[in-house]
């Protein structure tokens, strides 16, 4: 007998329900508003009263409205057909909704039940399997999509039968398994999973040991993100957070990208909707949309569903990771999610923590980040979720609870700097404040040595020193004046500027410059370090500025040119001529 209830209190989207039976924390219920069912989640229970957060507007809701409890937590539907979809935070397919305006209580199926899939079996009768084992495969768009033993199955099973090659719908039976007690269970291509529970169908989660290439030089070269790693980008508004995240989503070396637009601008999502079906993935030549799924709860969509949206994104990522894929999950912005938690905590009159955020915010954030990672699956294959989140600190102040909590959880920190943004030095990632913990991992250092060059790690740390010393020199020049410091201070400053302009700064709107493969990054860094190692002969500080400006200009033209093209080499020749003019003998 399902539990039922009646509404007894309404404060915005917090609705208090008196239940007539057992209710569990985080259980989903539907509240009837004049014939429309509004989805809600139980977030607190006091005696017979269940406090629920409604994922919709509660306008017009009355005391006494009927409520039915569903007996399960918020779940997503997993199966072929998720790729390239545009979902809302609760995994409703936005394209299937009718009308221009969102209607509350309109829930659509995440997976088209009528679509047919070409199934090829992988497992055979007699195989021992467990949750997450691959039973078969369909082709989803262009990607092999594994059909797995549902994650909810616990213990060991024996395959009794698997369907032969053929076309099936997602709800058709494709296999029969026998459990330890000899009971037969049917399996379809579709399964459900509660979003707040991590999917753990893997053998082990080692430390990340590979780099995830993003094509963004200031990230890849200076502070690389590991495959299966976590990173976050905090920054005041107007510093290019979103442009940077879009660049990463377009260029990153991943099989699948999940973009969670969490409480951000609708037009930014529209940009993805418009451009991703057109833009090409340079690695596969396919359209970007063919490897992307979008979860979107824009800032004007219901607040409670915003919290759900990041979990929906993560659960879908875990599902694809279990197929042995490299997944990149982006969330913009996790601060909006934290604010959604704050709004609910406030309505429930909980005692507030710092800045009125709930006390358990750090725990919630680190729990979430810990779901990312590189894994060895039970069958020996590997899969990964790399997570990159943005944080929108209030007033651009990094000493606020969301940034601080995230700093404890994420391993890469890409601080966006207002001054850099103001002087249009994009991407505005501060090269000195930002860090990647992965650079310290011996297994990552090993990987870089093997895959880029023997002395890459040293080159990177030298680059960081150059930048730091350049900043110090610039401070000295500002304090003591141009002629109050030795000429070498100017040289030191300008050598750092070359590195800044040529390697760190990148034009996200230029077709060539926007994405730089590792090979080219290595080549360019070597050229810039050559300049650094060259001793120049300047008679006065006035000669330093125009010389390096000219060098920077030539390097910039090089960045705009096709790698190793005639033009590219031509600029390099000019640079070398320029260097020789001034080289100290």
């Amino acid at each position, binding site marked *: 007998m399902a539990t039922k209830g009646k509404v*007894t209190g309404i404060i915005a989207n917090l609705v208090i329900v008196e239940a007539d039976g057992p209710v569990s924390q985080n259980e989903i219920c539907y509240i009837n508003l004049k014939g429309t069912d509004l989805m809600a989640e139980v977030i607190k229970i006091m005696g017979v009263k269940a406090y629920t957060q409604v994922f919709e507007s509660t306008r*017009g809701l*009355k*005391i006494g409205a009927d409520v039915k409890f569903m007996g399960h937590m918020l779940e997503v539907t997993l199966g072929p057909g998720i790729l390239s979809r545009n979902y809302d935070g609760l995994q409703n397919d936005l394209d299937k909704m009718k009308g221009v*305006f969102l209607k509350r209580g309109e829930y659509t199926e995440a997976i088209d039940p009528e679509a047919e899939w070409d199934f090829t079996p992988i497992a055979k009768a007699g195989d021992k399997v467990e949750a997450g084992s691959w039973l078969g495969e369909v082709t989803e768009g262009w990607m092999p999509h594994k059909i797995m033993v549902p994650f909810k199955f616990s213990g060991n099973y024996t395959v009794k039968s698997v369907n032969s090659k053929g076309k099936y719908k997602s709800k058709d039976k494709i296999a029969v398994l026998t459990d330890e007690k000899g009971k037969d269970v049917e399996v379809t291509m579709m399964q459900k999973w509660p979003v707040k529970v991590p999917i753990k169908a893997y053998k082990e989660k080692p430390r990340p040991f590979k780099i995830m290439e993003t094509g963004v030089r200031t990230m890849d070269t200076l502070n690389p993100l590991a495959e299966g790693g976590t990173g976050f980008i905090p920054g005041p508004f107007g510093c290019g957070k979103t442009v940077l995240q879009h660049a990463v989503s377009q260029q990153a070396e991943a099989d699948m990208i999940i973009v969670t637009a969490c409480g951000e601008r609708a037009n930014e999502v529209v940009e993805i909707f418009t451009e991703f079906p057109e833009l090409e993935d340079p690695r596969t030549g396919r359209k970007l949309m063919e490897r992307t799924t979008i979860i979107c709860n*824009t800032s004007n969509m219901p607040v409670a569903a915003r919290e759900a949206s990041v979990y929906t994104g993560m659960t879908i990522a875990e599902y694809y990771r279990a197929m042995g894929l490299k997944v990149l999950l982006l969330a913009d912005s996790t601060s909006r999610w934290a604010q959604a938690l704050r709004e609910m905590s*406030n309505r429930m009159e909980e005692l507030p923590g710092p800045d009125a955020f709930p006390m358990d915010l750090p725990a919630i954030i680190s729990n979430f980040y810990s779901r990312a990672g590189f894994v060895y699956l039970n069958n020996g294959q590997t899969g990964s979720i790399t997570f990159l989140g943005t944080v*929108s600190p*209030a007033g651009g102040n990094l000493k606020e609870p969301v940034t601080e909590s995230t700093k404890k959880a994420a391993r890469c920190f890409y601080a966006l700097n207002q001054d850099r943004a103001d002087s249009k030095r994009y991407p505005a990632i501060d090269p000195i404040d930002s860090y990647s913990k992965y650079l310290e991992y011996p297994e990552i250092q090993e990987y870089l040595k093997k895959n880029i060059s023997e002395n890459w790690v040293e080159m990177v740390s030298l680059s960081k020193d150059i930048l730091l010393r350049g900043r110090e020199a610039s401070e000295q020049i500002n304090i003591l*004046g141009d002629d109050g410091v030795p000429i070498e201070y100017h040289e030191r400053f300008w050598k750092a500027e070359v590195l800044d302009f040529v390697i760190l700064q990148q034009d996200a709107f230029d077709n060539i410059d926007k994405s730089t493969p590792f090979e080219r990054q290595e080549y360019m860094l070597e050229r810039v370090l050559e300049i650094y190692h060259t001793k120049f002969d300047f008679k006065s500080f006035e000669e330093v500025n125009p010389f390096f400006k000219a060098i920077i200009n030539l390097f910039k033209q090089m960045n705009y040119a096709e790698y190793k093209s005639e033009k590219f080499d031509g600029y390099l020749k000019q640079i070398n001529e320029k260097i020789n003019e001034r080289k100290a003998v």
Partner: protein
Amino acid sequence: METSAFQKIYTKITQVTKATCSLKAEGIGYEEIARVNGRLAQVVKIQGDTVTLQIFSGTEGIPTNAEVVFMGKAPTIKVSDELAGRFFNAYGDPIDGGPAVEGKEVEIGGPSVNPVRRKQPSELIPTGIAGIDLNNTLVTGQKIPFFADPDQPFNQVMAMVALRAKADKIILGGMGLSNDDYLFFKNIFDNAGALDRIISFINTTENPPVERLLVPDMALTAAEYFAHEKHEKVLVLLTDMTLYADALSIVSNRMDQIPSKDSMPGSLYSDLAKIYEKAVQFPEGGSITIIAVTTLSGGDITHAIPDNTGYITEGQLFLRRDTDIGKVIVDPFRSLSRLKQLVIGKQTRKDHPQVMNAGIRLFADAANAKTKLENGFDLNDYDERTLKFAKDYSRELLAIDINIDIDSMLDTGWRLFAEHFTKAELGIKDELVEKYWPKN
């Protein structure tokens, strides 16, 4: 609104605070409106049989036996073409002496547009002001505020932009507008002969502050009618959103909510987003563009109101007085239009993005030179040239009294570059320099 016969009248208020009153009532819907002794009120909380009402005009003089009549609906506005040219108060009642508007009654603050049904904004809004068109180009369907100190001429600039923008309808939402400013808008629109395409919802400083909360929703619901149903280009002007946010904090405070940063309610981001996200480009051609004003105190943009606004809107415009030329300019450093990338170099000339960036970078170099000068250091030749450039750039491009087309702005840019710098100092793509560098 007349009282119908079947409506039950309650006369027993159990609790009155500065902004709210509570009473026992049944069958009441959340966010329903009511009249308490004739004053408009809205349901903000229902707990068992106790209903809490927020009275927009305040509770002064409300007795415990006041007559409470529930209307059975959320606040509404009647929309039709008759709205054009009219002035209303925050409740949507005419204040220009004209008759009430007939039309379709719709609830204000309605649902949001399905993101997949939106179209990417792509139509440039020319204003003639180079500080905007060249460096911070506006696009239909955009939402952008002026961040300004109270002494700056933001209302004037906003009115100028509105009139030059060639919108089909201009909807003014005035919140806490001084009577003088209200008359300013009325006059300038009247003089431009544009009154018939203007609709105004006005809450002046003389009206109770909480009433302001209705103004943006009224204005935007009217805007949705023209943009969605009539496929018109609608420009919505909201001034001043800081006073709107202040009204939010008053209500939240009186409802005993725990304040977050700067005494603002924790839901400030969502509250503001609900308004600004009404800006939209519909696929059928209609659009809603929002230009708002957020006044700052002492230029502080880290305060919760401008800060949250900045995260929601697609950029912001800063005005600043440039003492070198004695004029107000659009600050090129702190201003930003996020949607400009969708149109510059695409609907405008190819060299637009690079001319824009080079100009701003050189202007930044001039600012550094100025700092050097102030600190008593000698300037080198390059510094001197940037300072001269900055002055010309400010006068010929950034000043708000400029009114030229975008090609002329770009040509002016190239002319100033050539006057003060060498080609190598620009850092612009060679092929563009070849094409546009002045020949003589």
